[in-house]
Structure formats: structure tokens, C-alpha cells
């Protein structure tokens, strides 16, 4: 289903390295958000870093839009991309079982070995009662969430949707990558980016709606990137020449990219500085692209991402 949806608010949180000022700032922001939520009559108990990133990004997106929390809206939805962000939790469950037997397994942490626990924690804290999905698609997890949220709004199944991705890249994941033959997977890091999507005319929108998600497309298999971009352009009803800039959202962009756009009078290409943020990379690139283009500028930017298993995705944003 085609058509634009408004980006009413953006929340982005990230830590590039552990034990830094970024991490201290995160703790402070979490504490402030928790206090504000408590004043509004809700309490939230977060257990893992990936939940903290997701919750804080959701909080910031709502705050920017001017919408009060808790939402208590039966038609507000949430769609998150979460994948490698719970690998550490899963690994610690297995290690406890290995080292201590069944008695070592924690009934508190076991439910968090399910990916949708992250989405659920945000929904409980903010009282989101509408539709909810969690996509596990590696570096395209966050992209899939944005595409699904756009569809939910255009189908009239939600009044607004918090959508994006969250990750927490922990020691266990990096060790697995190393053993799988990818020794340069970087340091422990993490982040989340959630967009509050809705409609500009809605009564809840406070000055938002200048920025729009106008197209989305995916592809799988041979030439998946070309398929994704083609589907995205068609969804938005724009041509390649209308695009001001292309952002590569992930590290996994197929070699055919440079090839297929040869001969096109195309835009300049930039690689997102969050391309290594896996499930959060695509929405973080969207936020970065909007920032660079300038909100309200009307410039159209294309964000393209790929994943070695999940295929390719493309989104068009009118800044």
C-alpha cells in the first residue's frame, strides 16, 4: 500500500565504546526518563542494555513529538527490529546451564531470551496497546520494522507507530563473529533509533510532520538491491533523478550497487557512520540522513541497506 507517512519524532541513542562519557550520559538520561515516567504514574524496570537503548530512543521520539506518556492508546503500535542484541543474554543462559546445571538457570532472565521481550518492555513502560511486531533480520531488522509500520498506518490499523531497531553488541556476539571468520567486528557497542510515525493532520501532532517517509521497498536473492530500490522508487512515485543523496545504511551493501547505477545521473553517496550497528543501523542512518538534509528542506534522500542473509531494503525520506 503506497503513500507517505509523517515522521513526528526521532529518538536516537548509541554508545560506541564502553565506560565512556556516552555511557555515563545514557545512565543519566535513563534515570531522568524513569523519574518522569514515575511522576506520570508508571514504573519501568529494565534488565538489559538493549532494552535501555530501545526504551530511551522511544522516550526521546515521543518527547520530540510532544506526545505525553504513558500513551494509553489502544491504536498506538510498536514495531522493532531486534536480533543480535539479545545474543549475550542467550549465551549467558547457555553458560549457566553448562556450568551449574538446571539449577543455574535464572527464571528472571529466561524470558529475555525471546526477541520480543525488548518490544514488550517498551510497550509496558509506555502503555502501548495496539499492534506489535518484532523482526529478526540482522542488519535489516530496523528497516523491516520501518516498512511494517508504514504499512500499518496506511492500512488504518494504527493511529501512530513507534518503529525502529535496537542492538547491544556484546562480548559473546563478537566472539562468535571472530570464530565464524570475521575478526574485525569491532568493539562492544550498541544503540537504538526509533521514529514515531503518524499523520501530520492528526490532533496529537505538535509541529511534527515536516519530514516524511515516502517510500519503502525490499528485495531478496539475485540483484536484491536493485529490486529494493526499484520497489522503493515505485512506492514513492519518484525517479532516481529526484534524489538528493544516497545513504548506505549498512556495511553489507552488494557490489552490484555501483554497477547498476552506472549511467544514471545519480546523487552523491555517503556511508552512514552507524553502518556497524546491525539491527539499529538502518533507522540510525535514516536519522542521520534527515539531519544532514535539514528538516523541512524538502530534499529527498534514499537510504539503502543490505544483509548477507536477509536481502536488501531501501527507504525514501523527504526531509
Amino acid at each position, binding site marked *: *500500500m503506497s503513500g507517505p507517512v509523517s515522521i513526528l519524532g526521532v529518538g536516537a541513542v548509541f554508545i560506541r565504546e564502553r565506560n565512556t562519557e556516552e555511557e555515563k550520559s545514557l545512565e543519566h538520561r535513563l534515570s531522568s526518563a524513569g523519574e518522569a515516567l514515575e511522576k506520570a504514574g508508571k514504573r519501568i524496570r529494565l534488565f538489559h542494555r538493549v532494552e535501555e537503548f530501545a526504551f530511551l530512543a522511544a522516550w526521546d521520539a515521543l518527547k520530540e513529538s510532544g506526545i505525553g506518556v504513558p500513551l494509553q492508546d*489502544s491504536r498506538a503500535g*510498536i514495531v522493532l527490529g531486534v*536480533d543480535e542484541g539479545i*545474543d549475550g543474554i*542467550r*549465551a549467558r*543462559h*547457555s*553458560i549457566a*546451564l*553448562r556450568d551449574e*546445571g*538446571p539449577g543455574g*538457570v*535464572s*527464571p528472571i532472565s*529466561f*524470558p529475555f*531470551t*525471546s*526477541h*520480543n*521481550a525488548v*518490544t*514488550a*518492555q517498551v*510497550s*509496558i513502560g509506555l*502503555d*502501548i*496497546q*495496539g*499492534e*506489535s*511486531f*518484532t*523482526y*529478526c*533480520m*540482522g542488519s535489516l531488522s530496523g528497516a523491516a520494522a520501518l516498512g*511494517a509500520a508504514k*504499512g500499518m498506518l496506511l*492500512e488504518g*490499523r494504527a493511529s501512530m507507530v513507534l518503529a525502529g531497531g535496537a542492538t547491544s553488541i556484546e562480548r559473546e556476539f563478537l566472539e*562468535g563473529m571472530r*570464530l*565464524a*571468520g570475521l575478526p574485525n567486528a569491532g568493539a562492544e557497542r550498541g544503540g537504538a533509533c526509533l521514529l514515531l510515525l503518524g499523520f501530520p493532520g492528526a490532533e496529537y501532532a505538535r509541529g511534527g510532520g515536516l519530514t516524511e517517509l515516502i517510500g519503502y521497498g*525490499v*528485495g*531478496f*536473492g*539475485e540483484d*536484491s538491491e536493485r*529490486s529494493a530500490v526499484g520497489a522503493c522508487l515505485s512506492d514513492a512515485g519518484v525517479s532516481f533523478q529526484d534524489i538528493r543523496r544516497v545513504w548506505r545504511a549498512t556495511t553489507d551493501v552488494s557490489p552490484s550497487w555501483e554497477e547498476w547505477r552506472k549511467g544514471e545521473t545519480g546523487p552523491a553517496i555517503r556511508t552512514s557512520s552507524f553502518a556497524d550497528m546491525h539491527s539499529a543501523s538502518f533507522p540510525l542512518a535514516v536519522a542521520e540522513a534527515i539531519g544532514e538534509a535539514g528538516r523541512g528542506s524538502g530534499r529527498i534522500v534514499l537510504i539503502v541497506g543490505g*544483509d548477507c*542473509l*536477509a*536481502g536488501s531494503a531501501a527507504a525514501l525520506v523527504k526531509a
Partner: protein
Amino acid sequence: MTEPVVVTGIGVISPLNPEGDTERFWTAIRVGEEGVLPVRSFDASSYPCKVAAEIPRDMLGAGGGGGAVMQMARIAFRRAIADADLTGKVDPKRTGLVLGTVLGGVVSGDRYLRGGALQDEEMKSLLRRYPMRAIAASLASSARIGGPVLTVSTACASGTDAIGIAFRKIRNGDLDAVVAGGVDAVSEFSFSGFSALNALTLSKVRPFSRNRSGIALGEGAAFLVLERENNAIARGACILGRIAGYGSALDATHLTAPHRDGRGLSSAITSAIRETGVEPDRIDYVNAHGTGTLYNDWMETRALRASLGPHAGAVPVSSIKAVLGHAFGAAGAMEAAVCLLAIRDGVVPPTANFEEADPGCDIDCVPNRERSVPVRVALSVSAGFGGQNGALVLAAR
């Protein structure tokens, strides 16, 4: 513009039909054949619970590699495509795959961490199987699917949501065909977790029965082939039924316990029925989530009362988890398949192992024996951790 969505193929593998024969599956469900047996896939001697519904690993074969969960998915997926006679009949770019799974390749990750000394190649192989999206990627590549290939994980509603997402993609005209379903396998990883939560039965699974004692883990895979009705007719496909509505909603109250009044489930059911355009009293059969836990059974009864009104007391409601255990990501897809077979044959399967009526579950739970009932419209519901709820309405063509 909305396109009618039909089902043209079913593929199921479960402990009751380890060879993947759908008719065998249906016959076993109808007679209430017990699938919950002593655990075989790992040593459960140090756990209070010693039962689960498993597919004997030697029956899965080794063809294609990828471990048990991959094999289950592969068998059900191929069966569904063959049942629909889909190969070469649809445009690959307008065909998609939606997979629901809770655990994905977690068995591989668990084995990697707990397996002791492993050879380098074995370690790499386990890590390649681990990512949640690896199963869908492998299935889609084998069938040359060129449209969206999605992996969704919404706890025990994953299979239902996968079919719901696929339904919308066709209904909105985005795709012509989607293979959708779910898969999950029993492992000590999940068994130990549910054991720690004291959720596992020590005897039998008894949904809606006063003397219920908890869930049993189950496993398997199920896929449906969904198609745009006009496409299916044009290519002469055999139409098994329609997906008529779908709804999803959150409880937003607790990570593991359902909302006591079934607020989210009721909302999902209402939304799914509204989409069909029929009144709630037109529902002829409900395939319940029916895990056999007190909170689920009571919550589900209340949700049915709230969404179906007085009809909730009259409509047959049954749970196949009594014999299949809880197959997590596969459960909702298996249950949707059962609804289609109930529509086809005019028979609703029983809630097996039922012993004692529970005043908190004042519904007709079809105790222990199948019933001949004309079924035109069936409702399949799922609920899971995280307050996740999903509902599908399936109908005769």
C-alpha cells in the same frame, strides 16, 4: 482495493506425523493421539518434568544439513509448496516468505557454547545456523523466492502473526503469493528456562481442565501457501479456504503473565472478526491457544466472552496443545492448518486429556472426542510472552 486471499497449500510436520504427511497429522489430532512422551533429544533426568512432544531425530534425515530445526522447516515448507503445486506457477518477484520463530537456531548456539571440544568446521557450521534469519534465507533461496523474506518473532504468536503479515501483503496487492508459517524445536535451552519458571507439567497437558498442571514443550513446523484468489483460480489451484481476517494487540501489562481479563487477546479477536465483515455469532469453531496453564485458560475464556459475547458459551472451542505440546513459533501455523482441515471435513478436533470442568472456563471445550459440526468460519487465537496476542479468521471459500 483489497484482494481476497486464499490458501492453496498446507505443509505440517509434528511429533504426530514425523514424515510430514498432513492427513496423518489431522487423523491423529482428531482421535487425540498422545504426542507428549518421555524426552528423547537430551537427558532430562535432572529435571522434575521429563516429558515433551518431539519428533524422533532419526526421522528427520540429514539431507541438506542445518540441524533439526532447519530440517523440520524444510520438510513442511516443501510439502506446502508441493501441495499448492506452486513451483513455476507464480512470479518469483511477487512471491514472499514470512517465517515466525521464537528460538530459531538457538539449539546451534547452545551446542556451540555447551558442546565441549568442537572441530573448527563444526563450530563454524553451528554459528552459521544460529542467526534467526538463517532458516528463512535458506528456504527462500531453495525456492527462488525474490520478494520479501521476513522473519518475525512475537513469542507464541509468531506463527499466527507470520500468516497475518502474509495475508496483508496479498490483500493489499503488494504480492501474489506468500508462503507463511512457523518453526521451533525442543531443546534443553528452552526446557531449562520453562522448568525454572515452574511452567512444565509433570504429567499430561490438560487445557481448560480444573486439574491442569502446566505446559509441555512441543516442536515442528507448519506452512500455508497464501495466494491472491484471482491468481489461484487462473492457474487452476485447489483452494482449501480463505484467510478472512487478522488482528494483533498488546496487553502492555506484564512480560510473562497475560492480562487477567484478556484485554489484548479480546482486542485482537475483535479486530480480526471486524475485518471479515461477519458478526461474531457466525464463528463456528475456535482453535484456542489453550496451553493448559491456569492464567492462560481463564484469560482466554474471558477474552472470548468479551469478543464473542453470548456466542462464546455456544461455539466449540478446542486446544490441540493437549497432544502436541506447545510448539512456540510453529504452534499458530499448525493451529491455522487445523482450522482449514476442520472447515474441509466439517469436524472439530477434541481437547484431549480433559478430566474435570473448571468454573473459570465456562466454554464448550469439546472434551476428548471430535465432533461433527459444519464449519464455515473458524477463529484461531494465539497469545504469548510480552503480552503478544494474535487472531486469524479462516473461512470456507
